[in-house]
């Protein structure tokens, strides 16, 4: 009975009894139990990752009016396992002139930077690895290691395409981290916590209703951080072939690929945690921790699906447009929004919930509208500078 209410603690207590019964030191037993827990979570994630390959391929096929993998097993479900076997038996290959050590470390770091993100993900009120009180900065720190792995891969491959791809990707990642940081500050202000569990607990009203614009900016910045379309110019097939991982084959490429898919799923999860109440869904999380996990995974899947939807709908954007979009539009808007949210949050503090929520919502909408108006005016002026004044065109009507 107890197991269904607090599975982690029950299992840990039971294992503790077993290990100390074998005459093991209590501290050592604790570390071993923690290790087993982490190993279990990461193994589950890797199994999920294998199916994400199948999901991604099926979904992209549907978007492109195809069927997708459907030959190996029912609905092509065995396809990813066939892919793994293929990756395993491909020739282990290091290009000439490559920096062997850095070249081999890069895919491992790339995978690790994604896996360590799950240390802070609260799957249920009682199922979480560690509730760091600096959770949001930890998210950025893990991303920093991912950035580093890309630059290592690009440099160590000794290939112009790889290096250019890595540089573009890193420039985009660091640039879009600025609006991401600004939007991460907004849930922090609203919940008074940097820990993800605290943020979820504070969402009696989902933050997407309090700060919809922040949710949107976070999603855009997250997609850029993931290097997915429309921000995937680092792997522009027609110019760079595949970007920073061009010289990678077999399982080393597989690590980059699996890392990218899991990263996208993880950011879907973070989007859900920060703005859509995480594991909370009309009190369902109180019923059973397992239901809470199901809610969390479902929400993460929806986030992941939206990221895929955008990927397969949008065109690739040129790097100068992309960076201009970030620095001249997204960053100023994000900081204005941050200031407006901080101010409105202080002014509306203590008011009834309906007034607070609608006030915050309206302030967000106002910022979005003002931003669009400014952008429209500026772009009209720039168009006129290029095309000549509009009055001439209208005279011909």
């Amino acid at each position, binding site marked *: 009975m107890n197991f269904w209410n607090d599975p982690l603690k029950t299992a840990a207590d039971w294992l503790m009894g077993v290990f100390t019964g074998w005459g093991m030191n209590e501290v050592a037993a604790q570390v071993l139990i923690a290790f087993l827990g982490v190993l279990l979570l990461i193994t589950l994630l890797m199994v999920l990752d294998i199916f994400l390959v199948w999901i991604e391929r099926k979904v992209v096929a549907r978007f492109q009016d195809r069927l997708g993998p459907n030959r190996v097993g029912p609905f092509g479900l065995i396809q990813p396992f066939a892919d793994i076997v293929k990756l395993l038996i491909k020739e282990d290959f290091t290009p000439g002139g490559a920096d062997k050590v850095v070249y081999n470390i890069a895919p491992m770091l790339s995978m690790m930077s994604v896996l360590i993100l799950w240390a802070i993900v609260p799957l249920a009120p009682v199922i979480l690895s560690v509730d760091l009180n600096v959770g949001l900065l930890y998210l950025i720190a893990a991303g920093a290691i991912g950035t580093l792995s890309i630059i290592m891969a690009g440099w160590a491959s000794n290939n112009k395409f790889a290096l250019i791809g890595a540089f573009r990707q890193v420039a985009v990642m*660091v640039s879009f981290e600025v609006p991401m940081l600004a939007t991460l500050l907004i849930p922090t202000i609203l919940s008074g916590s940097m820990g993800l569990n605290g943020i979820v607990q504070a969402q009696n009203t989902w933050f997407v209703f309090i700060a919809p614009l922040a949710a949107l900016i976070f999603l855009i910045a997250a997609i850029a951080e993931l290097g997915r379309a429309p921000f995937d110019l680092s792997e522009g097939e027609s110019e760079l072939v595949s970007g920073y991982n061009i010289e990678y084959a077999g399982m080393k490429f*597989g690590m980059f690929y699996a890392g990218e898919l899991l990263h996208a799923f993880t950011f879907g999860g973070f989007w859900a945690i920060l703005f859509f109440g995480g594991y909370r869904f009309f009190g369902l999380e109180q019923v059973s921790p397992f239901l809470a996990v199901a809610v969390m995974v479902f929400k993460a899947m929806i986030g992941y699906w939206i990221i895929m939807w955008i990927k397969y709908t949008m065109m690739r954007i040129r790097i100068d447009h992309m960076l201009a979009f970030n620095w001249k539009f997204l960053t100023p808007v994000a900081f204005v929004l941050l200031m407006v949210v901080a101010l409105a949050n202080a002014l509306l503090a203590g008011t009834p919930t309906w007034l607070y929520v609608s006030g915050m919502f309206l302030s967000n909408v106002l910022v979005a509208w003002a931003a669009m108006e400014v952008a429209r005016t500026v772009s009209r002026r720039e168009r006129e500078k290029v095309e000549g004044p509009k009055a001439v065109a209208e005279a011909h009507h």
Partner: protein
Amino acid sequence: MNEWLYVLLFIVVGLIIPVGAIGVAWIISPKKPNPIKSETYECGIETVGDSWVQFKAQYYIFALVFLVFDVEAVFLFPWAVKLGQLGLYAVIEGIIFILILVAGLVYTWRKGMLEWA
């Protein structure tokens, strides 16, 4: 127990998994390198010159601006955590802090350093 121990375990296990996968592939995969095969791949044509191409200074500028905003965010996170309990004066302080930095962004913009040219 120190909560960072869990993070350390995540780092360790997060390295074991890819090392294991790449290690297994290394054991069972064929290894038949030859000079032609290990040449740099540039869509079939022979590579010219070195991979160390000269990069635009613009990459450096963007990284620099990012660094400043990164440090700024580090200062703002503790501010944001306590904001709910602190009242209006703290909000004003934070807004002044942000405005000073946005002035830096505006300066960079006006100097044309944000152009990809």
